């Protein structure tokens, strides 16, 4: 690598409620990673409001990009390419980043690289684990996604399993709302669960017949809601911490179980996790333990790289850049973009 030129990529991410920009060198060195979060704004509505998110993106995007360039101590003239998330996500939100990235790339005559949001999450693992290379299994868990993926090579993915209904993070949000914790639910349940008994309530673990890597979380979510209703009807006081801990354990068990089955079946010795829920402490602990028992290397990003961010998009864009991927000026936002499709 020392003989080749360094590659600097400006990456932009606006698929949901974070406006983010980053400068990444050679795919693995983060020179800046700026995130403008809108969480406080959406808390008023109990979840992300697409139109409000889009309005906030357009308001903030230039400042976020300029800050990313400043922190990285580079100018647009130092860049080799622009990477941008073009799906999946909220279409109106994605379009802000896509239009902005296209205009900058066009004006500076730079290559434009459309990046899949999930590919970004997976690639977040490359940033802090310099030795990690494909092939490996990656579990992507967030508020919008639950995917079990075999990363065969840079940019080559096989989706082994996905959720049939709610994403794991979505189930966390709904349960958090039901027990009055508010939005966003993941970190709040994680915190409360530490005070509860994970074996107090036997919530169900869904296994899907004939699709051993798929997930379903609407059942466990409904079981929690039914349990709370039942207690209220009978006038019994319920323990929120026990609910949080038992629910979290039920979700974690399924995530770990499917991931371990994939690692064993594919004979791979490396497992990574990614996405917002990957910063859940119980999931990390359980996955770490399961990997240790089987002699598998376990990789996970820092919390700041688990949440939606642009550094991960820069990492993914770098490998797409090396693969020769170039997007046209007609690049559009694709809200339901499939992993591995272009």
């Amino acid at each position, binding site marked *: 690598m020392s003989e080749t030129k360094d590659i600097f990529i400006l990456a932009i991410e606006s698929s949901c409620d974070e406006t983010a920009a980053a400068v990444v060198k050679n795919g693995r060195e983060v020179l800046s990673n700026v995130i403008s979060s809108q969480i406080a704004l959406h808390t008023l509505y109990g979840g992300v409001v697409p139109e409000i998110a889009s309005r906030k993106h*357009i308001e903030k995007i230039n*400042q976020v990009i300029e800050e990313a360039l400043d922190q990285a101590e580079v100018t*647009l003239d130092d860049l080799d390419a622009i990477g941008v998330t073009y799906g999946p996500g909220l279409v109106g939100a994605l379009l802000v980043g896509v239009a902005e990235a296209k205009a900058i790339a066009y*004006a500076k005559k730079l290559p434009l690289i459309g990046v899949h949001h999930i590919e970004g999450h997976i690639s977040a693992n490359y940033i802090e684990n310099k030795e990690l290379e494909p092939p490996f299994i990656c579990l992507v868990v967030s508020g919008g996604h639950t995917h079990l993926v075999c990363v065969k090579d840079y940019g080559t993915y096989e989706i082994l399993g996905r959720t049939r209904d709610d994403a794991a993070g979505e189930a966390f949000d709904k349960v958090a709302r039901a027990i009055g914790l508010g939005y966003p639910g993941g970190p709040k349940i994680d915190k409360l669960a530490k005070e509860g008994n994970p074996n107090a309530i036997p919530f169900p673990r869904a296994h899907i017949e004939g699709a051993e890597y798929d997930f379903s979380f609407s059942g466990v979510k409904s079981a929690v809601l039914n349990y709370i209703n039942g207690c209220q009807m009978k006038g019994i006081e319920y323990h929120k911490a026990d609910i949080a801990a038992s629910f979290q354990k039920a979700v974690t068990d399924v995530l770990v179980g499917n991931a371990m089955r994939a690692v064993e079946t594919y004979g791979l010795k490396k497992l990574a996790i990614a996405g917002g829920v990957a910063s859940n402490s119980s999931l990390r602990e359980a996955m770490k333990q399961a990997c240790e028992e089987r002699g598998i290397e376990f990789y996970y990003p820092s919390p700041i790289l688990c949440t939606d961010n642009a550094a991960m998009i820069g990492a993914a864009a770098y490998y797409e850049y090396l693969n020769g991927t170039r997007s046209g000026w007609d690049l559009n936002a694709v809200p339901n973009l499939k992993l591995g499709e272009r």
Partner: protein
Amino acid sequence: MRILALDSSGLVAGVALVDEQQTIAEYTINYKKTHSQTLLSMLDEVVKMIDLNLEEVDAIAVAAGPGSFTGLRIGSATAKGLGMALQKPLIRIPTVDGLAYNLFGTKGLICPMMDARRSQVYTGIYRFEDTFEILEPQMAVPVEELIGKLNARGEQVTFLGDGVPVYRELLLKGLTVPYRFAPLHLNRQRAAAVGALAVTYYKEGKLETAAEHQPDYLRVSQAERERAEREQKSV
């Protein structure tokens, strides 16, 4: 002075380059493809056709609203990205003003109408017989209210905009003043009109930075509106 103008506020996507004397290039598309697919490709074609060096543009003008929320953001994000990369100022042109500016020399009043859904139009009332006069600045109102305003003024009025076919029946029924409709080459957004108006803005120093620019929606989001209504009810 050269101004690059963009308009993606409605169904039309438009790109134009103007200077103080003339329109150098204008490209208008009124087709079902999204602005995200068309706008930058159109700019690329204009640039190639007239050998334009974007660095030599003095400002980037954009139809900044009202209009389709998503369309406005595609235009604004494109203008913001260009402005940042080229280090040029932006000029925000009110969409309805830009529409009215199409009809120089029109006798009587000019009334652009854009379909704003929820039985409303984005509209305004203008005169452009000699100088460009804004009699009622752009607003979102029910068509009936607009008809009332026009009847009260008692003057001939010329309509244009994509709201005309949508509300034509209501206009025919409600208007008591003489009216006519602009012909097809003048009755939709045109980036050259945005550019021409921007020339006057540029001379008046009405510029903004790419970072501070954002669209003018003239409306809060549905979620905010419903929340305000809930709060009002609970008071």
